[in-house]
């Protein structure tokens, strides 16, 4: 989809190149994050793909076509572009901003209107915002408009240059989740630049770690990078808590769940005691027809049928999609040292410290 072959960029007046003989290949539908310290040439690399910056030497192929063989502005109309400062056009309304590339491509009015309406929904904005000017929107809303504008002509490729760098952490988290959802849904090929290794690992299907001077240190899946850093630079750049970072990438569904100490509320107190004894615990989870109802201590068993007992809620409930890092958090904060996994209320099983640790030392 996008191939960089021996791409080098030396800025005028500089001795050392900003990007040095970089080979990088991005397959269709991938979300590749470029990450590294400042001066690593990640933004330069991104901007060479749509020729905002022209490479000094080397080739960039897009769909097998040399990017230099076409008019730069025509190439750019086929590539979505989102930048950190957003760069919305202040003199144009939200609708006009989103319509930018379709207008350049001379789409018919009706088609543009339909597309704009569609995009506003897609990026989670309100239709009532269409007639506002960018200055009337919050930072997060502006960046949503920026994403909508980049997606407008349905380009197969999107380039994003630290798009969430300027919004507050809460909004950033939401925008990141939305980007992942968009990527799953639309299957775009995305190249995403960030200086934040956590963001790179969270978003990327593959992560390219660049060193000063545009040297590619490692290009692999997040899990592979975390478990097997290619160099000391990468290991240092990943920082501490690598184990925890790996856990953040793995879903609960990756580990085998144990059934855990549970009984149906139809069971007798004797059965419940038996389950506790078998698991060596002083509590038992209560199931109501496959749904988890809560839990009780052994000392709560006072002869009443189980269904009349007041069950305590599990504080955290996990789903198969939750990360192992979330599961670990649930385990260490729960009284019972287990995390309860349920899918829309349906009880699936329990996870404990040991099964998490096992997964990570594999």
């Amino acid at each position: 989809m996008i191939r960089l072959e021996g791409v080098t960029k030396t800025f005028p007046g500089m001795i050392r190149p900003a990007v040095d003989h970089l080979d990088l290949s991005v397959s269709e539908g991938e979300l590749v994050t470029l990450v590294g310290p400042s001066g690593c040439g990640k933004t330069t690399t991104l901007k060479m793909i749509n020729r905002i910056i022209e490479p000094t030497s080397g080739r960039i192929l897009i769909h097998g076509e040399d990017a230099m063989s076409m008019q730069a502005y025509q190439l750019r109309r086929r590539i979505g572009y989102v930048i950190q400062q957003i760069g919305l056009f202040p003199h144009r309304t939200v609708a006009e901003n989103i319509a930018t590339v379709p207008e350049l491509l001379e789409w018919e009015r009706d088609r543009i209107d339909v597309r704009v309406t569609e995009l506003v929904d897609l990026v989670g904005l309100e239709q009532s915002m269409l007639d506002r000017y960018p200055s009337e929107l919050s930072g997060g809303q502006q960046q949503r408009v920026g994403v909508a504008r980049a997606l407008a002509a349905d380009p197969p490729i999107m380039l994003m240059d630290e798009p969430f760098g300027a919004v507050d952490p809460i909004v950033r988290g939401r925008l990141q989740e939305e980007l992942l959802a968009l990527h799953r849904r639309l299957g775009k090929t995305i190249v995403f630049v960030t200086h934040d290794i956590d963001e790179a690992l969270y978003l990327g299907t593959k992560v390219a770690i660049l060193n000063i001077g545009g040297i590619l240190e490692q290009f692999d899946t997040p899990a592979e990078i975390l478990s097997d850093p290619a160099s000391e630079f990468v290991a240092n750049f990943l920082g501490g808590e690598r184990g925890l970072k790996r856990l953040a990438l793995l879903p609960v569904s990756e580990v085998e769940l144990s059934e855990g100490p549970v009984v149906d509320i139809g069971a007798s107190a004797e059965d419940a005691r038996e389950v506790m004894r078998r698991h060596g615990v002083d509590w038992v989870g209560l199931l109501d027809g496959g749904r988890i109802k809560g839990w009780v201590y052994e000392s709560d068993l006072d002869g009443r049928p189980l269904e009349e007992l007041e069950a305590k809620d599990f504080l955290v409930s996990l789903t198969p999609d939750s990360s192992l890092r979330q599961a670990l958090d649930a385990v260490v904060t729960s009284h019972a040292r287990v995390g309860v996994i349920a899918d829309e209320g349906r009880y699936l099983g329990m996870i404990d410290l040991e099964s998490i640790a096992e997964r990570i030392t594999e």
Partner: protein
Amino acid sequence: MTVVAQERPFFDWSWVVRNVDQIWEQTLEHLSLTGFALGVGLVISILLAVLALTRPRTYEPIASVSGLLYTIPSLAVFALVAPIVGIGTFAEKFVTAEVALVSYTLLILVRNIVTGLRGVPAETKEAAVGMGYTPGQVLRQIEMPLALPVIVAGVRIATVTVVGLVTVTSLLGLGGLGFFILNGLRKSIIFPTEIIVGVLLSVLLAALLDVGLLWLGRRLAPWAKART
């Protein structure tokens, strides 16, 4: 002399009524001389400003020359241009007058256009380029509209300046409201009514054009008001 002065009031309203057609005609001529100078000045200034921005080395000379032109007294400019162009025919007079008028607009207009274009945020331009605008489209569709409020502010100052200067062009034998001022002064007995009409209408014209341009600027850049 005193006798005559007593017979004629300081402001002779009946003169105004008798000459209303001519007043109207000269006002229109004043307007067209002003409009022409501004139109030509704006076109030249835009070209100079774009040149100054695309070739930064040219900015200094452009700024100095237009600044120098601005400092030359208007009478002197007419005196300098007249021998070259001539003031025989109407066309020659017109060209002589406009050369002077246009040269006075350049400093204000070039400076404001350059300031306005420089004020366009870099990220807005980068986004425009990244979306696939050609360089010409970036200038026409992004930079010029965004510079508009600052450009209009310059046009307003230039307009007020030119309206005042056009009164001087009647020295060349052209029309405009200066015609009345000159006429009033040239009479063997100074005739204040004609001078007052010329001066007042000139001031009024400048004020009306200024307000009109202010309004137009807001109409053309509604987004600028939304930004608080």
